């Protein structure tokens, strides 16, 4: 372990530890169990999940709202830090926007098991009913998803440039190409940021 902030920042880009692999394995098992449960529900109908005509909106819509609520929290955190001009906000903003993107995607995806006939989901786009609140929910969530991705991706540009510029070998070809793509067009001075101790993971927001 080193206390050099630059090396510490780059540690996640190195070789993953055994504990990390175990965590991925355990969480992957949870995901697999969820997929199996969903297939069971698709074959048997939503009744197998305990839904009935009296409780017709239950855990799935609660999950949707919970995850989208968490996502909005991410946006609020980064907005407050930005508005109050906190100079130390960079790593927190990155975390907050990352959380926002991931949770809004999970929240939106949970709509799929929530509806009874997911194979017709395309109709929501193809023949929307403009008087339906659900349609405008959909529009709002999609707008928010797009904005979150933009707010997440824009501050990544200088960091990706810094990573790609100085550590291409350490990253391997796949990541190197990805970071090159994300940082494409960045003509700032990543060196300045990298050489400044403690700001190797800055955020331009």
């Amino acid at each position, binding site marked *: 372990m080193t206390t050099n902030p630059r090396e510490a920042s780059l540690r996640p880009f190195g070789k993953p530890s055994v504990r990390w692999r175990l965590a991925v394995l355990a969480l992957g098992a949870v995901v697999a169990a969820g997929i199996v449960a969903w297939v069971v529900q698709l074959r*048997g109908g*939503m009744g197998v999940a305990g839904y009935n005509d009296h409780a017709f909106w239950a855990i799935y819509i609660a999950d949707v709202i919970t995850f989208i609520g968490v996502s909005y929290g991410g946006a609020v955190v980064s907005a407050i830090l930005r508005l109050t001009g906190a100079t130390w906000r960079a790593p927190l903003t990155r975390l907050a926007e990352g959380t926002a993107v991931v949770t809004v995607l999970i929240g939106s995806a949970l709509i799929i098991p*929530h509806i009874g006939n997911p194979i017709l989901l395309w109709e929501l786009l193809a023949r929307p*009913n*403009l*008087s339906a609140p659900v349609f405008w929910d959909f529009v709002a969530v999609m707008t928010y998803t797009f904005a979150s991705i933009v707010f997440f991706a824009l501050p990544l540009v200088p960091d990706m440039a810094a990573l790609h510029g100085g550590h291409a070998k350490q990253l391997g070809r796949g990541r190197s190409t990805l970071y090159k793509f994300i940082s494409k067009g960045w003509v700032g001075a990543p060196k300045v940021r990298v050489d400044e101790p403690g700001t190797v993971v800055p955020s331009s927001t």
Partner: protein
Amino acid sequence: MQSHTPSPDEGPAGPPPGAAPTEGPGLSRRNLLATLGVAATGGALALVSYRDEAQASTKQAGPVPKKAQHAWCMVIDLRMCDGCKVCTTSCQTRHSLREEQTWIKVYDMEDSTGGTFPMPRPCMMCENPPCMYVCPVGATLRTDEGLVLVDTDSCVGSRACMAACPYEARYFNWTEPLPAKKMPMPNTPQMPVAKKGTVGKCVLCADRLPQGELPACVQGCPMGVLYIGDLVTDVAVNSFGKTVLLSEFLKANDAVRFKEEQGTNPRVYYILGHGQDLGGEA
């Protein structure tokens, strides 16, 4: 529907007059933005007017559209109802429904003396149906004759309609539905064949009405409680073949509608007995 329908080629037209005073070679930024704005507005207008036209065919100002030949309604004479629930079972037999899928459900209501009285509740066939407005894909429709029906071929199963219906008259196919034995017919909104993951509800036996036949519940009722009526020809008839002049029958017996305060304008009329009350402000 007013005559403001934009022509289809209005949207992506060139720059609007006066939008870009300094025309350079190629597309200036202002020019591009103006064009995009016009295109977006035109597209939105076209979409809105499409919905307007779709609704104009079903939603009319008056209770009965002029072009409709019938306006189906139901009269329920609670004075005669003994709560035997034959209406429910006849309906379930005809539509191959499960026991809990009570398209016409008999509730126990409390009267002013503390006793209970049975009250059958079919779909109210609202003139202003909330279920239709909240469907995200427009799978609920209202015919000229005032029947609120579900197109199960486009139902995504969002169950927004179930949340919207003040009468809890909608039932979901939570599991694989029972096979439709009695009806070897194609699936239509008038005579739906139940499909897993879609919603179902009372259709007032819409396939029978044009043939002059009674809905299953009306036909099955041993007490003559249920009347099927037509607001256009102003008649109603029950299982005994008792035919009444609808408007006079409703007026003479002080008919009321369920949850009138919701503004749904239901087409099911109740005739109350002594001390009976449907609640609400009706």
